[in-house]
């Protein structure tokens, strides 16, 4: 037992080295680490209160006092972008944690037991794949009303089926392996087999999908806010900030540009890290 744990730790270290040795993996890891740090200490670094309005300072171009300039209400854009990091990252992490867990459990059960449960569950996921993700999220958000919690609910509602499908496909591959049969032969119960013998074989697939998903969920959440279905004003949410700067794009380019860059860099970080993880684990994902 102790030996197995040690090899799994060694395996993880090896994986981490493999990921970091590729240039994209390294760059992705650096960006993601930076984002995590900023979301923790961003509010400390922020030079101003992100909600403080100052009409005499409105729409000021980038300068030493306001490196990213100020917006239409004279709020410091750098401070708002820094605060926004925590919002975007917590939305993405929470949504991925919720939808990956739901998808993982349903996929395990569906693939392992098969039969009617499996059939029913797969038809439900078919249904979710009949909608483009953003469209369904928009409809859910419209039914629930705009708020950050509802944004997360809406995105989680449309995100779990991918995990369920993926996990089910993996489980189908290992279900009839000899070691599972052996475990059953010694008298292991379903729960034990599922969590001790099947789960470890699918965790890496979920991990890769989740990392890539973090990038697309940041984009999705920002998109919802951009069209007015996400975080309500005056939240310093990146998508909302891009939307607020839309009217000023002609001459006050900085209002939309910096929050948009923040969205892009975050999505880029998770996508690069996810790609490197996928290459390292040699995982094939399909939607």
């Amino acid at each position, binding site marked *: 037992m102790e030996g197995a744990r040690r090899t799994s730790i060694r395996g993880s270290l090896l994986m981490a080295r493999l990921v970091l040795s590729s240039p*994209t993996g390294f760059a992705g890891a650096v960006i993601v680490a930076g984002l995590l740090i900023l979301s923790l200490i961003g509010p400390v670094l922020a030079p101003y209160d992100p909600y403080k309005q100052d009409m005499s300072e409105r729409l000021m171009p980038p300068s030493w006092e306001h490196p990213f300039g100020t917006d239409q209400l004279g709020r410091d854009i750098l401070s708002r972008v820094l605060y926004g990091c925590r919002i975007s990252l917590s939305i993405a992490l929470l949504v991925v944690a919720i939808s990956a867990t739901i998808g993982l459990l349903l996929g395990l059960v569906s693939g392992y037991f098969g039969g009617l449960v499996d059939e029913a569950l797969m*038809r439900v996921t*078919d*249904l979710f*794949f*009949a*909608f*483009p*993700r*953003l*469209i*369904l999220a*928009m*409809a*859910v958000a*419209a*039914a*629930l009303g705009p708020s950050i919690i509802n944004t997360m609910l809406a995105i989680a509602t449309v995100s779990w089926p991918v995990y369920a499908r993926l996990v089910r496909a993996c489980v189908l591959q290992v279900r009839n392996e000899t070691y599972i049969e052996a475990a059953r032969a010694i008298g292991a119960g379903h729960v034990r087999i599922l969590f001790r013998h099947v789960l470890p074989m699918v965790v890496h697939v979920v991990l890769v999908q989740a990392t890539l998903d973090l*990038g*697309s969920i940041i*984009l999705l959440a*920002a*998109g919802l806010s*951009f*069209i*007015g*279905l996400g975080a309500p004003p005056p939240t310093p949410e990146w*998508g909302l900030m*891009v*939307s607020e*700067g*839309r009217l000023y*794009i*002609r*001459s006050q*380019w900085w209002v*939309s*540009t910096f929050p*948009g860059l923040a*969205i*892009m860099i975050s*999505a*880029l970080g998770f*996508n*690069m890290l996810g*790609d490197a993880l996928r290459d390292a684990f040699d995982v094939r994902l399909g*939607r």
Partner: protein
Amino acid sequence: MDLRAYVLRRLALTTLVLFGVLVVTFLLSHVIPADPIGAILGPQAPPELVEKLRREWGLDKPLHEQFIDYVCRAVRGDLGRSIRTNRPVLQDLLEFFPATLELATASLMLGVLVGVPLGTISALRRGSWIDHAARVFVTLGVSTPVFWLGLIMLMIFYYRLGWLPGPGRLDPYMTPPPRVTGLILLDSLLAGRLDAFYSALRHLAMPAAVLGWYAAAGIARITRSSVLEVMRREHVRTARAKGLLERIVVLRHILRNALMPIVTVIGTTYGGLLEGAVLTETIFAWPGLGRYSTGAFLYLDFMAVMGTTLFIAVIYSLVNLAVDLIYAYLDPRVRYG
């Protein structure tokens, strides 16, 4: 299973999914919102008006009867009436859809024209500078928010450089060609209006480039991995060994076999383009479904929001159906498997 049996089975499945789609939009429009009438009329509405509307929409009936009503109406194409335009939602959707169709199709064409060659070359020249450049292009393409990219391009190419026209589908002073299909490019050709065609093409360039990049990125990524996989197979080695021209090996032996995943990704990209259209149409003042539905939301025009959702899901399901049928046609293993 022959092709016909496969088609029938696939059609049955699509019907089932479309029924499920109706269940979902029903739940979202009738069950989850605590007070649909309040959302439409606002908090200060007189109670007798609320009561009248409740009865008119059948909201006083039990839920299963409401659902049956809803399905019957939807099947007949009655998606309710928009409170913003005061017209049937379906009529609105049909008016706005061609603009989105034009934009999505142009973007998809760009995506295929750029994505397939790029993915193929970067697989054939794996590890070369062009492969690395393609990776950067792909990763940036899937990471850049389209609504922001649209704004930045508008700022640079319209406001700063003046190379491309701004928002809208035609120059503001130009009379549009008579509406036949609703696709301005096609309509202006039908009317023999080359000036309108040229103007429409220039207006289409920027939004189509924004969405086309996103489409090309996804398509290039799948093409690359699919080509890489086929290249490893033995028949390719044999083809090379017997001294076939590299061009023939690539076109006949590699690309042909790599086509399947590419067809699939083109189908899913279409769904992504519908989403992208929702996000970019507002920026480019593009009178399509996206602009219609976002506007509908801001006015709490509930029938219009749900009608659009239903409409897009139907289109998307039909595209998926088409992809599966093409797939079965191209690859006999699917229908016999």
